[in-house]
């Protein structure tokens, strides 16, 4: 089983290729959208590269959940409701939502999609330590 460091190095390589960023920009804390400039199609690009690099299949919505923002039960007045937050944590158990919970505005949602979150997800899929 790969170590967390080994997973991070492979994830970094995938992100450098998908987003044309320098490898020193890819830190565990870096947000994919805010810091690394990822746009919607890049998420699919990242998934394709991760699937190849780790020889896994990533089901739709598994890494980047869909439909959360359009559900009025989960989003009201531009913010995630307590039910929305609970759903988010359920779908992304490997994401660090501590900072986001202080101001759960939809516009801040991109901040939880970090490099560290991807590493955490891959760890659960390949059983890293």
């Amino acid at each position, binding site marked *: 089983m790969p170590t967390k460091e080994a997973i991070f190095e492979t994830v970094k390589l995938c992100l450098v*290729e*998908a987003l044309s960023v320098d490898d020193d920009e890819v830190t565990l804390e870096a947000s994919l959208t805010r810091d690394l400039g990822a746009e919607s*199609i*890049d998420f*699919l*690009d990242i*998934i*394709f590269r991760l*699937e*190849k690099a780790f020889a896994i299949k990533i089901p*739709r919505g598994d890494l980047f959940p869909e439909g959360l923002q359009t559900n009025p039960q989960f989003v009201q007045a531009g913010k995630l409701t307590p039910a929305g937050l609970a759903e988010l944590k359920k779908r992304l158990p490997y994401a660090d939502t501590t900072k986001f919970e202080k101001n759960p505005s939809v516009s801040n949602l991109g901040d939880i999609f970090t490099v560290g979150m991807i590493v955490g997800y891959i760890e659960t899929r390949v059983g890293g330590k």
Partner: protein
Amino acid sequence: MRWFWIDRVTYLEKGKKSRAIKNVSLAEEHLHDHFPGWPVMPQALMIEGMAQTGGILAGSVSNFTENIVLAKVSKASFHRHVHPGDQMVFESELVDSGPNGYRAETRITVDGVLTAESSMMFAAVPGISGETAFVFKDNLMALLRECPGFDRSTNGFSQ
């Protein structure tokens, strides 16, 4: 009318590989200005030809019921100039397929010599169920009618 930067699809293996040709002619007006006295096929138009070859291949996965939109050119390299009289052969391979998009790698050769290569991503946008998606309507499908294996009754490829 729409912009065609391939003349004919000559081979299509559904969801796997496609091949198309374009004959470059001095009758094409853009070559008069690009460049005066030294006509060179613009590389941006070669990218469009690669996008059409790869896009048709991506469309074949759903028998052309999904709209396929060029979303990202991850890589494009050009190794040689293309001039009037040359025949470009475009060959695309679908290297990744997902629920909402595809990646195709395409190369162009002229007389068997590698001239350009690219890696492109296409987004798949669902069309109206059971109908040919609007990006594949009209003349774009005409490019396929002479292609071996194309079934005119279903507007698709059986295999």
